[in-house]
């Protein structure tokens, strides 16, 4: 989307958010770049979010190969909010197939042993039930990929599914992280990187932005249904988990992360990678200027 057009729509949509209804625009062809849904069940919230963003058909066409990237990094049960919400993910998979997707690939390069993470996060089972192509990540699945315009990284091993798929949906969970204060969409893409990933932690913000130059999701859906406030990203204590029943979704991945950070209780301006990404022209980060279209379910 061109910037001018984007700003224009964003302002219009911000206005609509104030009025409390996205429906004022009727069949308008422009849609919000970020939406915020609250107080619903995971599946109905994500359906609503996609409706407001123009429907799944805005993103997925017939015969698309979709790479869906949840967070399956840790060997934790879903309640611990260390991994993405399974219901949310399975609904997105279902919608992708409904829109005619040929294949929906689900994978993550895990931190704990892969089978444990896939099993105990329950994401493997739910994704398979929804018909997704769940894959384990192996060393030979990565290709060293040049990063044009990369400042800290000139190339890095990236999972081949990124290039096999023609659409990427990023489905991170919102949680605490010692390095970047919070981990959201940009950081979630590290799960598609190979090599010595620990090395990415040096000049972290710069490198995480560089990775996102070559891995470009068309849609980011942030799971803030349960968020992990402390001891992230591993978690392990239910007392650190807060139920928010919120999802933030959108096409502007910087703005989505900025709004998620704000909801998490942080000032987006103090998050270095957002500033770098914004300066690199990857999206907006001014949460005062660009407000999400909201929808709150009545309980």
């Amino acid at each position, binding site marked *: 989307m061109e910037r001018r057009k984007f700003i224009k729509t964003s302002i219009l949509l911000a206005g609509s958010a104030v009025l409390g209804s996205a429906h004022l625009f009727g069949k308008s062809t422009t849609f919000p770049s970020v939406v915020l849904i609250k107080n619903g069940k995971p599946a109905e919230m994500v359906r609503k979010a996609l409706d407001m963003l123009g429907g799944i058909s805005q993103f997925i066409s017939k015969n698309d190969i979709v790479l869906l990237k949840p967070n399956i990094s840790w060997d934790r049960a879903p309640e611990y909010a260390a991994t993405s919400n399974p219901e949310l993910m399975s609904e997105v998979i279902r919608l992708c197939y409904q829109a005619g997707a040929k294949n929906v690939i689900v994978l993550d390069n895990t931190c704990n042993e892969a089978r444990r993470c896939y099993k105990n996060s329950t994401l493997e089972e739910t994704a398979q039930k929804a018909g997704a192509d769940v894959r384990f990540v*192996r060393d030979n699945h990565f290709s060293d990929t040049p990063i044009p315009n990369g400042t800290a990284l000139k190339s890095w091993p990236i999972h081949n599914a990124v290039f096999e798929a023609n659409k990427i949906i990023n489905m991170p969970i919102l949680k605490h992280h*010692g390095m970047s204060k919070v981990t959201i969409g940009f950081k979630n893409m590290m799960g598609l990187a190979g090599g010595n990933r*620990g*090395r990415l932690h040096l000049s972290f913000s710069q490198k995480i932005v560089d990775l996102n130059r070559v891995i470009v999701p068309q849609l980011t859906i942030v799971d803030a249904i349960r968020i992990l406030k402390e001891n992230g990203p591993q978690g392990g204590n239910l007392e650190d988990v807060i139920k928010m029943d919120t999802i933030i979704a959108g096409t502007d991945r910087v703005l989505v992360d900025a709004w998620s950070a704000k909801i998490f209780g942080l000032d987006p301006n103090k998050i270095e990678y957002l500033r770098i990404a914004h300066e690199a022209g990857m999206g907006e980060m001014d949460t005062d200027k660009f407000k999400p279209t909201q929808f709150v379910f009545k309980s």
Partner: protein
Amino acid sequence: MKKITSKTWRKTSQIFFFLLFFLTVLQATYPFEPWLPPELFLWFDPLVALAVQIAGRFFAPVFLLSLVFILFPMIFGRAFCGWICPLGTVIDATDRLISPKKIGDFRKVRPIKTFLLVIFLMLALFGVQYSWAMDPLPILWRSVGVFVLSFGFLIVDMILNGFVSVGVFPNVVMDIQDSLSGYLFPVDMPNFENLVIPVLLFFTILGLSRIGRRFWCRTLCPLGALQGIISKIGLFCRKVDSEKCTACGLCRKKCKMDAIEPDFIKTEKSECVMCLSCKGVCPTNAISFGFDSPKKMQTSVDLSKRSFIGAGATALVGAGLFAMSKPDPNRTSEAIRPPGAVAESEFLKRCIRCEECVRICATSGKCLQMSLLETGMMGIWTPVAKFRSGHCEFNCNLCGQICPTKAIQPLELKEKQEIRMGTAIFIKDRCIPYRLNDNCIVCEEHCPVSPKAIQVDEKEIFDPISGQKRIVRLPYIDPELCIGCGICEEKCPLEGKAGICVVREGEERVPV
């Protein structure tokens, strides 16, 4: 229709028990949902039961199972060796390829196995359990569980990866790989240190048959010796109708155990494994097996009194040597035992080096490795956690669930998560934030305990390299919270030696 011969029955039994053994080994993998206990054959092994319980001075009811193979030879002689022992079956299978046709005369060296048995049992009396070195069932367990299966995985994975890389149905092949991962193998090729010597030993055992068939079973196997000694009072045995016998010698030529005396009539009870081959080959049907064989037809191989005393003396010297050569604390301070391990001296008395824990760990956190000399001469091939190759998975307690001798005690997951394998320490000359004044904290990110045992202290630091002041997050460890799981050491992004490592300090052992 062809008549089912006794040979067919024997082979069926051998194949059945080998497959059973193989299935028990396959069970030892994450997710651990066994329908056959992987320890099954080891529980039935009387040599394991005797050596471990005598050396450790304890009694474990599960080892009552091994009474089966104390009682069994009282009736059927060494039929265990001929019909059941899975290592015997493997030896029989390779013998067909490599053994000379001639039986060869090795009668003089046959008592060696009894000599070895006496040494191992005497050592156990002196508190040293070393029978694992030659007990066939632990040998086969570690050879199949750690080597054969992983080697198979390596080959299969290489072929499948080849298909993926040249683009032959890559998605189908990846599906196959993933479903294999779900059952038999981990996702990544496991890494095993110090596997060379045990594997060489395994092939040596098979290769010994180049000298003569079942050479290992005839001359070296201490479990065979134990079966042989009890067989002396065995009821079921070979008998020959001397009127029908034409002394053609076919039976003696056929006997792989060389258990038939030169007169073709007498049988060495302690050697005969009841394979019934002689019966099948006899042209006059003079040979039969039954419960009513005349005593005079049986002899046995005995250990002379002098050899017996010699074995005792050897064991005493051996035990003394072990007692005198305490391992170097500099080296052992970094050898980390699995969570739930009993006190070190007890651990060494119990561990039979079946490597079940190492195998199951290879399908989970991948930290357990066979040691070499890290824990001293006595500790060869015992499991130690090597955190650079893997970590102890926070939610995994499988090594303790699977240990056949409870050298690693079974712990509830909650207990295991609180038990300390050691304590992590920073090596500040290597650690990136301390050395390069740059942020890293990968270790903090991975720390699984909550609150984290690795915390960060933000400090403004002057960086002499760039000449600037910087805010650096310096990690530190709260030793009260650290359980020594080693994930920090594994994930440290430094090449080679990590900037953080787990040492034995503060380790907790479980009482027996």
